């Protein structure tokens, strides 16, 4: 009774007028017809999209630094942190002459996220010491096969910040470039 909203259930037998339901049905119809003029709760999805909050966790993006070098060092912390075990990676050593591609001596030669396993919890983002992975504000598109949901490195990498500046900024979204 804290809210003072509790109502005792009326167990009186229905009167004749009540038992033909007519008046209550008319009242109900009044309620439904009023919804005809209300604002629609849904939107025309592919043409219109809703704006997400800044902390929305969508598809993963593998980050680059300001010079376009990949941040990831294939340390595997994200894979360890992942509760759904959706991340697979293979590390490789940076060769001389690849300094403009990878920021540190080790990089991810293979980096896959199985989007069917991923629960978009964002723990990989929290685990990453290099700020190499974050969850963007786009969400997983549909696909015809299971294989299409295993995102390879090409699908995940952010566009190059110098060569393809516009796409890079679009992919960055509301996240500020930290490095």
């Amino acid at each position: 009774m804290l809210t003072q909203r509790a109502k005792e259930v009326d167990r009186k037998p229905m009167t004749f007028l009540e038992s033909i339901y007519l008046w209550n049905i008319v009242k109900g119809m009044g309620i439904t017809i009023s919804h005809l003029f209300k604002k629609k709760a849904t939107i025309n999805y592919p043409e219109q999209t809703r704006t997400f909050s800044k902390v929305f966790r969508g598809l993963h993006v593998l980050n680059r630094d300001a010079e376009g070098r990949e941040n990831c060092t294939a340390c595997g912390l994200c894979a360890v942190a992942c509760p759904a075990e959706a991340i697979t990676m293979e590390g490789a050593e940076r060769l001389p002459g690849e300094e403009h591609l990878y920021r540190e001596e080790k990089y991810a030669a293979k980096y896959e996220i199985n989007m069917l396993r991923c629960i978009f919890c964002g723990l990989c983002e929290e685990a990453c010491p290099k700020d190499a992975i974050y969850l963007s504000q786009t969400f997983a598109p549909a696909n015809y096969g299971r294989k299409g949901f295993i995102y390879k490195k090409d699908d995940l990498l952010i566009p190059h910040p110098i060569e393809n500046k516009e796409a890079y900024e679009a992919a960055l979204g509301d996240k500020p470039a930290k490095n």
Partner: protein
Amino acid sequence: MTLLVIDWWFILEKALLIGGIIGLSFFIAMYTTLAERKVAAWLQDRRGPNRAGPFGIFQPLADGGKLFFKEEIIPLASNKFLFILGPALAMITALLTSTVIPWAAPFVTQGGNVIPIQVADVDMGILLVFSIVSVGVYGIMIGGWASNNKFSLMAAIRGASQMVSYELPMGLCLIAVLFMTGSLKMSEIVANQVQNGWHIIYQPLGFIIFFVCALAECNRTPFDLPEAENELNFGYHQEYSSMKLGFYLFAEYINMFISSAVMVTLFFGGYDIPFVNEASWGLSSFWMTAISFAVIMAKISFMLFVFLWIRWTIPRFRYDQLMNLGWKKLIPLALINMIISAAVMLLLNK
């Protein structure tokens, strides 16, 4: 050979009318399915189908096309002949009832021939509608029985008992209307309303009871117990697939259309234009026919909207509630309505 002399123009005229009315029934039923989904969406703050064509106007075609391409399954354990007869019967009876409804003011040709926009103005008009509607229950019963499935059978039993019990109050309301017209002829029922005002003014209770019974006769919510998705698994059309299922679903919408037309004719003055004396306009007969047809279609559309509106407002009745309402509430009310109407008619000495 004189016996075989038939007025060919008469046959042509009737053939055109029959074709036109069947086409109209199908067209309206098609777009009622779209309207159903749209109204459902609007009443639930959604948008409804809007992908197929502008505002989704090709959605019924897409739905129909889908049904045609579905695999057609006739269960091995079913009675094949009856299994096919069921949906056919449902469709035929749904279409047959439209024969006696006057769709517009009679058209007078240049030569002075009067062409009624009505397939058959038989003397027993409204009784014919009732008898055909009664046969309509066989569509459900045969389909449910032939499916050899206990859910279908139970749905068929429910449908039959429901239709039988709701035909009684419906008939009693009709009697009260017939006191006022003195004729079963549909054209005279309309003519009486054009002269003396619509029957809804004199018979409001009669109309409400008639409307409730019409909902039950069409198996519409809140009386859609024969289909009852959550207890009977879609009821009598459970074993049906492809266009045979489509026939059942479509027959329901045609039934809605026709029963709206019957209600408009009985209580809302048929093709009569309200509040004006259209005879004083001096329009040509062609325009009078066209306008009156538009008027009756507007009235029918509104009735159809009320059908949909009710469907998306109230949930399904329980079976015992349905029977209680029919036998213990509506029949006494209809009887009282009938007796009062009779007494008033007697007092007025009509």
